[in-house]
């Protein structure tokens, strides 16, 4: 019951935030809509017992990534006059029509087909997926240790790449 209530409220907040990202003319409003979505998804993680991932979501996404977005928006200025004119006038209608077809197809499949969202799902209350730090760290440092080291390397490369991009023009000039 509590979960259903949380799902409805947070699901709506998430969707409203997502729509705000797309339709807002001011990029700052888009960033705030993204914040609403990220926080809503984080609470949905908590509802689903993914505690560590929810904390990481708030710290990394809502904390670091969104701050970075806002910094860049402030840095390059709020570009109000995004042109709404279409260089390829029929493109929008084609994409819209295709979207409707795909939605109807997928929705019909989900509703009327013999469709299972997650095959072999257990309906009992989960115990093994209580996502504490210990529970996530176990597989992370045993089964996935190679991928973990690879992401460490990836982060180093990303940081070095960002610094290189920031210095690129200065060296050239």
């Amino acid at each position: 019951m509590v979960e259903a209530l949380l799902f409805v409220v947070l699901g709506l907040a998430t969707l409203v935030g997502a729509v705000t990202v797309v339709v807002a003319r001011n990029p700052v409003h888009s960033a705030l809509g993204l914040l609403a979505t990220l926080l809503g998804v984080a609470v949905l993680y908590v509802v689903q017992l993914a505690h560590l991932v929810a904390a990481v979501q708030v710290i990394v996404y809502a904390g670091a990534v969104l701050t970075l977005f806002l910094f860049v928006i402030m840095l390059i200025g709020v570009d109000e006059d995004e042109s709404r004119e279409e260089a390829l006038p029929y493109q929008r209608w084609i994409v819209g029509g295709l979207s409707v077809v795909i939605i109807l197809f997928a929705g019909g499949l989900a509703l009327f087909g013999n469709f299972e969202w997650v095959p072999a799902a257990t309906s009992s209350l989960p115990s093994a997926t209580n996502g504490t730090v210990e529970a996530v760290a176990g597989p992370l440092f045993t089964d996935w240790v190679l991928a973990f080291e690879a992401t460490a390397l990836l982060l180093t490369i990303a940081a070095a790449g960002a610094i290189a991009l920031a210095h690129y023009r200065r060296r050239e000039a």
Partner: protein
Amino acid sequence: MVDVAWYMSLAGALFFIGAVGLLLRRNALVMFMCIELMLNAVNLTLISTGRALNDINGQVAVFFILVVAAAEVVVGLAIIVSIFRIRSSASVDELSELRG
């Protein structure tokens, strides 16, 4: 307990909104935010299926996706800023330097 189908539907709606925004918007920053939306939708499906299957590996996968997304944002925003320094615009329609 909310059925996993509802979470999957929510994630599908989020992904769809993100994809539509990516197609319709020209501002590179907003397009980037739409990519983040789509990544979050996928993360939500992984968490929900991991819970439905009683498998912790879904959460581990989300952990990796978060790290990769953070790295992607760092490099992507650096590219946007360096493009803005040259072009004074964040609109992707005006970028044609790579045209053959």
